[in-house]
């Protein structure tokens, strides 16, 4: 495909998305459900792409997403709740004198949240990244539990409001705010992946010994990857706080990490576009599949399996199918390209003639 055709396609695609967003923004009320799904998807996409940076591109298994998101979310929440609303929010113990006067605009608070997440990532990374990567998995998982219990502890009531959670966090004024911020984050990560650092990360993933022999400082690169990833995970957490408007420690349970993991695996480890696609599919799918939880009658026949909880079973089976049979996920380690899309459709047609070829992996 010629370069000019590609540019044309890109422009068309971007304008279609823009037009759609403007349309949604204008009919905010009628489509508030769709808007909230899109916002949540794009925020999860940032977290998934960041997770992909360590897990998919550098080959480190980190499971601390929920913890880093909690740090970002609480930083944003504490700093952006309007000063006059704070007495109402901290209705049990009151807020810390010093903190209660500080109010930051959204963007600086967001960056600060990311920064804190990165610093903490450094603190765990320095001891643990020297060890085998399995230990990183369990240490980060443990770390996110520690963060959660610290946030909920009564000793921190004056800062995090302990068990009572934070509310009145300013929500996004329009769908464009999260859209632009998230696109920016993903763009920066993509640029990083395409830089010499990114190539070093991939070399580490493929073969640590060989990478070290090529003169790559293993520890430093692993730490960089882990810290940058945590920075953006923190940002995603901050965005989530603004999306939700109220947060408490229960929001950041291990299940949040597993959700992001599912998105990354489904999209394909090592593919940025895969993570974005996965994020939209999982978040929207969760809503589409809600009907699984309601009793279904076809004619007079009551379908037996449909009742509360069935949706999540279907979801976990889907995850297992992807892991076992399509271990590359939707995109493998490839990125979206127009050629790929065309090829996919061609493939679909030729397969149809052969019949029963099954779903293509989307390559």
């Amino acid at each position, binding site marked *: 495909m010629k370069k000019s055709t590609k540019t044309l396609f890109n422009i068309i695609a971007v304008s279609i998305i823009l037009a759609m967003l403007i349309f949604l923004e204008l009919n905010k009320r009628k489509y508030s459900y769709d808007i909230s799904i899109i916002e949540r998807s794009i925020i999860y996409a940032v977290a998934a792409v960041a997770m992909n940076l360590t897990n998919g591109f550098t080959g480190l298994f980190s499971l601390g997403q929920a913890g880093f998101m909690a740090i970002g979310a609480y930083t944003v929440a504490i700093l952006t709740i309007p000063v006059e609303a704070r007495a109402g929010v901290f209705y049990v113990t009151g807020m810390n004198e010093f903190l209660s006067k500080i109010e930051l605009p959204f963007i600086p608070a967001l960056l600060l949240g990311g920064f804190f997440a990165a610093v903490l990532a450094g603190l765990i990374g320095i001891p643990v990244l020297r060890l*085998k990567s399995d230990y990183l998995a*369990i240490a980060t998982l443990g770390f996110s539990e520690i963060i959660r219990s610290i946030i909920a*502890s009564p000793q921190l009531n004056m800062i995090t409001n302990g068990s009572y959670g934070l509310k009145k966090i300013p929500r996004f004024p329009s769908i464009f705010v999260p859209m632009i911020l998230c696109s920016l984050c993903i763009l920066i990560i993509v640029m990083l992946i395409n830089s010499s650092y990114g190539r070093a990360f991939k070399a580490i993933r493929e073969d640590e010994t060989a990478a070290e022999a090529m003169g790559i400082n293993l520890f430093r690169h692993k730490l960089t990857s882990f810290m940058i990833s945590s920075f953006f995970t923190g940002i995603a957490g901050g965005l989530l706080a603004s999306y939700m408007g109220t947060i408490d420690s229960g929001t950041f349970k291990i299940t949040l990490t597993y959700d992001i993991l599912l998105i990354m695996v489904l999209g394909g480890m090592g593919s940025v576009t895969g993570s974005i696609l996965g994020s939209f599919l999982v978040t929207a799918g969760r809503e589409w599949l809600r009907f699984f939880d309601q009793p279904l009658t076809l004619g007079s026949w009551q379908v037996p399996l449909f009742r*509360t909880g069935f949706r*999540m*079973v279907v979801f976990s089976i889907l995850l297992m199918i992807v*892991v076992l049979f399509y271990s590359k996920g939707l995109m493998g380690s490839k990125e979206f390209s127009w050629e790929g899309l065309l090829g996919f459709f061609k493939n679909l047609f030729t397969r149809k003639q052969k019949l029963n070829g099954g779903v293509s992996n989307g390559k």
Partner: protein
Amino acid sequence: MSLATFLQHCLTGISLGGAYALIAIGYTMVYGILRLINFAHGDLFMIAGYLMIFTLADFPWYIAIPIVLIGTVVIGIVIERLAYKPLRSAPRMSIMISAIGVSLLLQNLATYLFTALPRGYPEIPYLKRIYQFGPLSASFVTFLTPILTMALVFLMVMMINKTKIGMAMRAVSKDYETAEIMGIKINSVVSFTFAIGSLLAGIGSILYFTDRMSVNPFSGSLPGLKCFVAAVLGGIGSIPGAMIGGFILGIGETFLVALGFSTFSDAFTFILLIVMLLVKPTGLFGEKATEKV
């Protein structure tokens, strides 16, 4: 803290530690052989709890207990065959993700089948009888747990060191490929490992839930993680290590709560883990692992 209170806390801690130890052994054995953190192990423990609720409704305890143990072992082996075996040559991360997937599936399946409301765990005769020693008061199971744990650990160590299958397990965990070349049937060794791990999880489940009396779909996930930490603490791959790790966690956690730091009782486990990884990554009883190139 009075002496009676102190002793009561000790009793609670040791009993909890015993149950942790039994689950930790399952982790340590599987990790030793497959280098896999079996995230689903804790959920298997939860499923065993539900199995007991349903079998004890229809059978007397002396029939129900063997049924539950056999059921747990079968489920454990089936999980290994379906979810782990196909990925044995895949990257390590894939198999761990598969384990997380199984764990989610078991939790969601339990929520679907038995609802999220907790179910009362049935009382097994004798186990629940309450004994009083002066100011101390505890049920029989509290005393039984640590004793049974130590007996089982002794049996495990004997099996690993003295029997043929034990030797095969040691060989596979030392060097997977060489063991295969030497004619060891890897698949049956792995299945056997999962069977033993699941059996201990089943026994642990009976002791743990009898003491706590209720099962819900998520009651396996946190104990599961903690027990993995116990296994790392003791030195992954070492069975006596897992037992010591389990006891350390159980007693430590109980005293932390007793001193009014409930908030940090879960965090404690993981802080201990990170400190351990800093000071002695191979754990208390672990052998020095050399990275294979």
